[in-house]
């Protein structure tokens, strides 16, 4: 029996990962969405009709995007403006509302990475976490999504393929974090800033997404995050999100 407070993480195994998103740079090009889906084996829902209500499934809030780009409108023609694109993914809250409500410990906080983990094989699909996420960034596998052969050849072997009935969400590409940490550990060093990044950040042609350790004052992401004009989404709820947005404009 190990007491919770006895556990210490070694330096190379721990880190507080975070993201900075510059909405002024984001062009809404969806490269991050595509990259995320390719990296994380996110299935495509297609335009199948939902038998329950004749709506298109994907139109009925049943998309599976782990990251989505939100935009709203301000004003009316001709003074109409599109609000800055807002890429929305799991904010990896420090105090995540989704975690305590899961009865099966299927979504828990990782001590090592300071991320919200999603443990698919423990998920029984109560979808309480989805309800309790103020950002609505969790998506549910409403069915088993078709991937006709040979499309499964593209699947990333580092990432689980989810089946129907489980929740899923952005993981900050935890498989990449671990790969980089393993490599660094093998070489007896710490993961260098910028050594790796998430799929979305890597693809982003405008460099609007910066990922890294926010507990490392030297890293680009923590320097950006501490510039002062960043905001955290719905911070007033006390969720302590790990994603900082620059509103821009």
């Amino acid at each position, binding site marked *: *029996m*190990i*007491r*919770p*407070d006895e*556990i210490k993480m070694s330096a190379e195994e721990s880190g507080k990962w975070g993201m900075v998103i510059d909405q002024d740079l984001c062009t809404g090009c969806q490269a991050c969405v595509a990259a995320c889906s390719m990296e994380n084996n996110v299935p495509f829902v297609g335009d199948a009709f939902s038998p329950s209500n004749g709506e298109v499934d994907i139109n009925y809030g049943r998309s599976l995007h782990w990251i989505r780009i939100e935009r709203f409108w301000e004003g009316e023609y001709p003074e109409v403006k599109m609000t800055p694109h807002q890429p929305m993914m799991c904010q990896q809250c*420090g*105090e*995540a*509302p*989704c*975690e*305590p409500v*899961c009865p099966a*410990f299927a*979504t*828990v*906080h*990782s*001590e090592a990475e300071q991320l919200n983990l999603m443990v698919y094989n423990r998920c029984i699909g109560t979808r309480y976490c989805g309800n309790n996420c103020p950002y609505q960034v969790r998506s549910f596998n409403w069915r088993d999504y078709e991937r006709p052969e040979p499309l499964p050849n593209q699947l990333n072997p580092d990432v689980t393929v989810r089946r129907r009935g489980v929740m899923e969400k952005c993981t900050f590409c935890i498989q990449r974090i671990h790969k980089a940490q393993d490599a660094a550990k093998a070489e007896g060093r710490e993961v260098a800033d910028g050594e790796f990044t998430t799929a979305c950040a890597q693809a982003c042609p405008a460099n609007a997404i910066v990922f890294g350790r926010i507990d490392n004052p030297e890293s680009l992401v923590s320097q950006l995050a501490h510039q002062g004009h960043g905001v955290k989404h719905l911070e007033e709820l006390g969720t302590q999100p790990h994603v900082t947005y620059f509103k821009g404009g």
Partner: protein
Amino acid sequence: MTESKVVDILAVFADIGPAADALDQLRAMGIHDECMNVISGVPVTEAMLGRPAQHTNVPRIALGGALLGFSAGAFLAFGVPYMYPYPIQVGRQAPISGPPSVIILFELTMLIMLLSTFLGVFLDSMFPNYRPMKYVTEVSDGKIAILIECPHVEEKKLTDALKKMGAESVEPAEAQHL
């Protein structure tokens, strides 16, 4: 010779009054309270019949269950968080937090208390019991039966006395399948 014979008599009364009187008289005849039992279709209290209070373990078993339940709840609330091989954090709540613990303690206390109360009835009444027993079905129609199992008294004398006391019927009690 008759001394050793156990008298087994079932007297059926129509009402509480006569039955209570009969009990008094039987007691006066020297039949000990322990040799008598009253079988009724409604819960007739001991006070109504002037009988000694029945001993029941149900409240004690219930209390024991409550304590057991409380301990089980305490184990779940305070023990389990220490059993994880690694710390499990949810929403930055402490592994052992007050409010959820109260709920767990309450629910488990109640659950096991109720279960053991129920079990207490079984234990105390020796339920289920499908062996042949001394019984008359009129009891469930509202009659009150007095069952006398006494080694000291003569059967004939007792039967007569009971009839005099207003018993509707007095029969030798025989164990039968209910």
